[in-house]
């Protein structure tokens, strides 16, 4: 295959960005399908992951890739606590959707301000920059291609995620209980599913995935306490493009938005248009608005899990042949 290097890098960038958005959008969708609230604090869970990785990197000189499990745990725990102590009590008290949305904005402000305070303390005590930091990535050369580690690790993680979610949702008892609890909480409860436990685990997983994405973010974007907020709009665009109720839709949406943004701005910033690259977030915004106005039920509304499993089976068969 003859591909010029500029185009290869572009595709690699788009793939990485897509992977990050998939991690974020799957989490956002997971929280949305539980209580039906768009969690505006989702971006800040990613920021927490970024700071966990950065703290470990500056203190112990350990590669950010190795702090992924810790980022997963810490962001997941914070998401779980926010569900247990804020959203669940509010939902139990009969607070409406708008009330829950306001609470999630309040949580967003609290988390972001806390991260600002933490960044100030970090730079004060360790004398390091705590805003606008970047991680240095290494590349490995495969033939003529030089691939950044981030590309390999984030892609592997996303593929792993897609398969593990598929197995979790279709093959395990917990996954089936989860789907039941999401589809009809009351009926699932009657049939003995612990809906609260299922929701709590969903929130933990969502926060954890955001934390992983956060640990990856400083490889690509200069990170600070606001980095999660900048990703939030794109995350919403991805989730809504995917239908907001479907985990596979979120994956599809993540890649669609990631590729659209990276490749779109690449072409829009070239001579015929000459648009400043600073307008990049506008692409996600356009996707969001157009999706809401034209296909509010999202792309995934027509793609069913059964169809995917059929597709996978045909792929397996074709591989055997």
């Amino acid at each position, binding site marked *: 295959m003859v591909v010029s290097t500029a185009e290869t890098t572009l595709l690699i960038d788009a793939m990485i960005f897509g992977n990050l958005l998939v991690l974020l959008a799957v989490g956002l969708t997971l929280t949305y399908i539980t209580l039906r*609230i768009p969690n505006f604090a989702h971006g800040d869970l990613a920021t927490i992951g970024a700071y966990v990785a950065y703290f470990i990197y500056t203190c112990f000189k350990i590669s950010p890739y190795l702090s992924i499990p810790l980022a997963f745990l810490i962001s997941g725990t914070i998401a779980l606590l926010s569900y247990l102590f804020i959203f669940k009590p*509010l939902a139990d008290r009969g607070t409406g959707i*708008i009330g829950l*949305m306001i609470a999630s*904005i*309040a949580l967003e402000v*609290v988390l972001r301000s806390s991260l600002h305070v933490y960044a100030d303390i970090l730079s004060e005590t360790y004398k390091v920059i705590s805003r606008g930091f970047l991680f240095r990535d290494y590349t490995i050369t495969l033939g003529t291609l030089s691939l950044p580690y981030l590309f390999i690790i984030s892609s592997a993680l996303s593929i792993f995620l897609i398969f593990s979610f598929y197995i979790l949702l279709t093959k395990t008892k917990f996954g089936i209980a989860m789907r039941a609890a999401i589809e009809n909480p009351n009926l699932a409860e009657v049939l003995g599913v612990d809906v609260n436990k299922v929701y709590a685990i969903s929130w933990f997983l969502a926060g954890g995935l955001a934390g992983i994405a956060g640990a990856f973010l400083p490889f690509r974007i200069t990170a600070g306490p606001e980095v999660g907020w900048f990703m939030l709009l794109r995350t919403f665009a991805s989730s809504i493009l995917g239908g907001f109720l479907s985990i596979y839709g979120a994956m599809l949406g993540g890649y669609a938005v990631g590729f659209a943004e990276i490749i779109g701005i690449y072409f829009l910033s070239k001579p015929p248009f000459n648009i400043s690259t600073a307008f990049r*977030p*506008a692409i996600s915004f356009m996707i969001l*608005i157009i999706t809401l106005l034209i296909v509010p039920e999202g792309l995934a509304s027509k793609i069913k899990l059964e169809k995917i499993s059929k597709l996978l089976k045909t792929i397996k068969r074709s591989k055997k042949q």
Partner: protein
Amino acid sequence: MIGIADPIRFMIDLTAFFSIYLMLSISLNLEYGYTGIPNFGKVLFFAGGAFIAGAVITRLLLIIIGLSSKNYCSFNVLYASEVTKYLAENPLLSILIFVTMLLAGCIVGGLLGYVASYPAIRLKETYLGITLLASGELLRIVARNYDPLICGTLGVSVPDVFAWIPASIKEFVQVLIMLGIALSTWFFVEKLTRSPLGRLIRAIRDNEIAAESYGKDVVKVRMKILVLGSAIAGIAGVLYALYVRSVHADDFMPLRTFIIWVMIIIGGVGNNIGAALGSFIYVSTERLIMQYKHYIVAPFDVNYLSYIFFGIVLILILMFKPKGLLPEKPSKTTEFEKIIKKLKKK
């Protein structure tokens, strides 16, 4: 007042920001408290007013004076002070510019509200909230990167349309005018919510389907309210730009929307006195923190602590006092009519 270096300055600032936030919280209360539109993009309309004031005043006056606006962005501070000197000698023109800007803010806010109401008709409350929030961010990104508007990241300085008033009472007069405008919007919204339209919007909030079944055009009414609320926010934006005398895109973060929500949730949703109380509580806390900031020794910016504090307060109020400090009261009209009947019988 003990510990406050300049009490008069403090009071003027307090009143000015109270007036601006009063207008914003009242208009959000009209949209959310009375009509049930979750406007998470309030800052969009506020920014619209401020941006139009920042973008237009200096350029317009440069044309009137007959000066060229070459390299406007690099020299905008210079141009603004030049224009201010000219305005100081022309009271009539200053007043004219002030009134025109208020109208322009009203129109721009209203137009943005009209554009935003287009999805408002079609979307559920969740999606509407997301869209409005995202639109606010989009306007900020555009303003930040599109230099001809308000000079991008540089920001633009706004001339003083009150320069013709003697310096000793200038700020006092300006703040009084701001408070006057804010109080008149307060009375206007109060009157509106007591009118038949006010009863209709509450009916829509409480049960949209019932209102629709009585033949009320829910979509049209919601549009009307969103345009009205946005126009008020636009005027507040103009007043803000004229008071602060500069406009920066990054002043209009979604954090401002959050602050206005804090005000109406603390004060009481669906109660204008509550909204006023909420804005007063927030503004006075913010101003006091600004005053005492230098005395607090901390390895971080104290402002963030106040955001954390208000965030937690908001969540606690949602949990334990969801109707706010001053809950919505039933309409006063029936009682008033009874009193009149009694008076007539006597």
